[in-house]
């Protein structure tokens, strides 16, 4: 409210005739709190009674007539459905990931209201529309626009928005059950164990809630997180967030395998959407797994993995290929063949040593070396400028989806102990979230949890 007063006073013409603004101000803190609870959408429409969480702005329509005719730009994934999008959806090229903490004093009812507001806004943006009834530019002239507006004219470029709940939503570190949901906490939703070599920054780890926004257009992904965090003001605040600029996994057989910042193809043997039995077996939480509210959902693990790029770049090609166990060019396993040839972990070369060494990343991460465990990887490259030593602040923002956190823990323990790649990487951020199942039209994310 302080801000509105300042704005008014710095604009004499408006102040002169600005009854709304003085009304709003004099309404006092209770009213301000009320506005906040209703979310940004009603805030934007101050002075106009009875505004619901409508939608406006036909960005999708504008987009479809825009010059961009490519599939990646025109793709639209419906937000509502049997599973949340952004999991088996073909991995988009760009990411904005955000973790939130629920604000002190927020009640259960207010949290539910936030999830409802988020759901409506996410569905709207996923469909290519602005946030709010009036959107970016059509609302009351003396009110802030409901939508921040930087996505105007852009196609959704396959935008997906995926929500998750962290362990601390159910029970804080001090053991407080803020929202009366501790009895519904999934047994597996406990903080991940410490892995050897972990060097975690609390400020880049954990969180009560998370939102993963993916799109083939970075501005569309950023627009989503920006507007969803604005909607949350007063109820939840950003704890940490991460931009990713190049997908490092393919989640569909229609996609080429991309490269990580080490220059290697990554995720060749990832779970693909076209393998429904594997997805059912390894990614989705089943009814029998429990709890019931999480059925059809998944667990999301995020790890910020810093790469020591400079040291890697001056390592020998022979060493780089030995570390991964694949060729750097085609991505074929060192045991021979082409990219999609199954690695032969037994085939030996000189001195009877296996061509894919015992410490090679492809061996240690492979499902055959992990009791059949697979995880659906959906990570992104990042470069966040440079550190104080002049080294690129770069790496892999690893995201995986799995039916149980134990899948990730088993594979990561194997990697943390033995992977030759550890020489060149360090895990500096970590988070785990339960991702509820799909949201039926008219409902909201997590409705079953709070039912």
């Amino acid at each position, binding site marked *: 409210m302080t801000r509105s007063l300042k704005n008014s006073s710095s604009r004499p013409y408006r102040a002169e005739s600005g009854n709304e603004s003085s009304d709003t101000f004099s309404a006092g803190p209770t009213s301000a709190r009320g506005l906040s609870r209703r979310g940004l959408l009603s805030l934007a429409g101050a002075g106009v009674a009875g505004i619901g969480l409508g939608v406006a702005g036909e960005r999708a329509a504008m987009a479809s007539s825009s010059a961009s005719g490519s599939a990646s730009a025109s793709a639209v994934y419906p937000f509502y459905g049997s599973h949340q999008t952004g999991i088996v959806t073909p991995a988009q090229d760009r990411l904005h990931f955000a973790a939130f903490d629920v604000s002190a004093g927020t009640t259960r009812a207010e949290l539910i209201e936030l999830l409802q507001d988020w759901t409506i806004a996410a569905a709207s943006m996923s469909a290519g529309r602005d946030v709010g009834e009036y959107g970016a530019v059509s609302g009351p002239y003396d009110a802030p626009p409901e939508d921040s507006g930087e996505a105007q004219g852009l196609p959704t470029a396959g935008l997906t928005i995926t929500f998750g709940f962290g362990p601390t939503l159910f029970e804080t570190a001090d053991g407080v059950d803020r929202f009366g949901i501790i009895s519904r906490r999934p047994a597996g939703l406990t903080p991940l164990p*410490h892995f050897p070599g972990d060097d975690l920054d609390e400020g880049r780890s954990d969180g009560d809630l998370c939102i993963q926004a993916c799109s083939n257009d970075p501005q569309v992904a950023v627009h989503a997180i920006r507007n969803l965090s604005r909607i949350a003001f007063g109820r939840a605040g950003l704890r940490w967030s991460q931009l990713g600029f190049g997908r490092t996994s393919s989640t569909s057989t229609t996609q080429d395998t991309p490269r990580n910042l080490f220059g290697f193809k990554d995720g060749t043997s990832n779970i693909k959407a076209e393998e429904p039995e594997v997805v059912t077996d390894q990614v989705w939480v089943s009814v029998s797994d429990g709890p019931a509210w999480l059925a059809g959902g998944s667990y999301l693990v995020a790890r910020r993995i810093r790469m*020591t790029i400079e*040291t890697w770049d*001056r390592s020998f090609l022979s060493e780089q290929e030995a570390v991964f166990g694949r060729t750097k060019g085609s991505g*074929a396993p060192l045991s021979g063949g082409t990219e999609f040839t199954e690695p032969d972990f037994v085939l030996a070369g000189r001195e009877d040593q296996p*061509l894919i060494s015992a410490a090679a990343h492809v061996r240690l991460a492979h499902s055959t070396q992990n009791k059949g465990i697979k995880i659906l990887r959906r990570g992104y490259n990042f470069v966040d400028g440079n550190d104080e030593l*002049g080294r690129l602040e770069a790496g892999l923002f690893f995201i995986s989806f799995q039916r149980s956190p134990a899948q990730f823990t088993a594979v990561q323990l194997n990697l943390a102990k033995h992977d*030759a790649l550890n020489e060149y990487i360090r895990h500096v951020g970590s988070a785990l979230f339960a991702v509820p199942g799909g949201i039926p039209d008219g409902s909201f994310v997590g409705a079953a949890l709070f039912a």
Partner: protein
Amino acid sequence: MPHVLHSVRLLGVGVLGVTLLSGCVANNPAASHTALTVDSSATNCAVSANEAPAGSIRFSVTNSGDQVTEFYLLADDGRRIVGEAENIGPGLSRDLVVQLDAGRYFTACKPGMAGDGVGKAEFTATKTDAAATVDVERAAQIDSANSDYAVYVSDQIDQLVTGTDSFAAAYMNGDDDTARSLYAKTRVHWERVETIAESFGDLDPKLDLREADLEEGQDWTGWHAIEKDLWPAEAEAGFEAYSADKRRALTEQLVADTQTLHTKVQGLSFTLSQQTNGAIGLLDEVATGKVTGEEETWSHTDLWDFQANVDGARVLYDGVRRLLLQTDPDLAASLDTEFASLQTLLDAQRVGDGFKLYTDLTPAEIRALADQVNALGEPLNQLTAALVL
């Protein structure tokens, strides 16, 4: 810190090609080399040409058979290996880059990696103005570098054993001031030959594991476990000083493990690639652990380790420098310059017979050290390719 890779480098991967390439990043695509292809099938070893001008030659070997194969370039006696590409899986391609003097050679492939090989054929490097001459004393110089380094390693470990005994006695007797004063001074003998010590996979984690590298439930032993007890001021809240029993157990383990290390390094000998890769590995240690202040979390004596790693790399470089002057004097000049610049920066931080604590360095001083580690690292990592036969 345990680093799997160094042991791989040191003990496993011998890059055996004669790759006498110049010591700068290859950013000049116009530089002339002859590109040839080799098709290694079950029965043949077809090279795209049977002669090429002396100088840089790149053989791109494709394995079209269904067994693991190797490609050999042999000297004119048909036996001595001049260069090879090994462990090429079926369907894969690998490049062998060599610098050949004018003369007669043989090419051959060995599908299945056993027997006499297939497709042995003559190959001629034709004379050019630029062709280098062969130094007949080279083999003797390599032998001498190898044995000198073995003596250095042995000497450092001897001093490590002596120093560890004194340190252990002080710590066990509760003379913490003396133990603190001996900590960094003793560890330098470890850090100078760190890549050798690390090559004994089980000993390194017992002796040098940092707390962050522990796995849940794993026992923590070695230097850093004691370091934390000696410098408890920066330990986490609630950290309790070790009991006398724990001190005794840690001390006895440290002394015993160091003695085991001493036994293991007796009679070691080192190939040329193990030496050049050792120098590279030591500087990598500086880049990843020391210049960031992560090695000595509580004592902050990282610059002692930094200097010791550089000492060890410098000894390795000095051992092969005469060889390098014959094959790539430009690279030698570059390494001389960069080593000297790094030493100047380190010398500026000396205090008495030691160094400033890492936490007393300014951000600008740390940045200058980090930049110089990169400046030295780039040419240093060319050393193996420039030297190894």
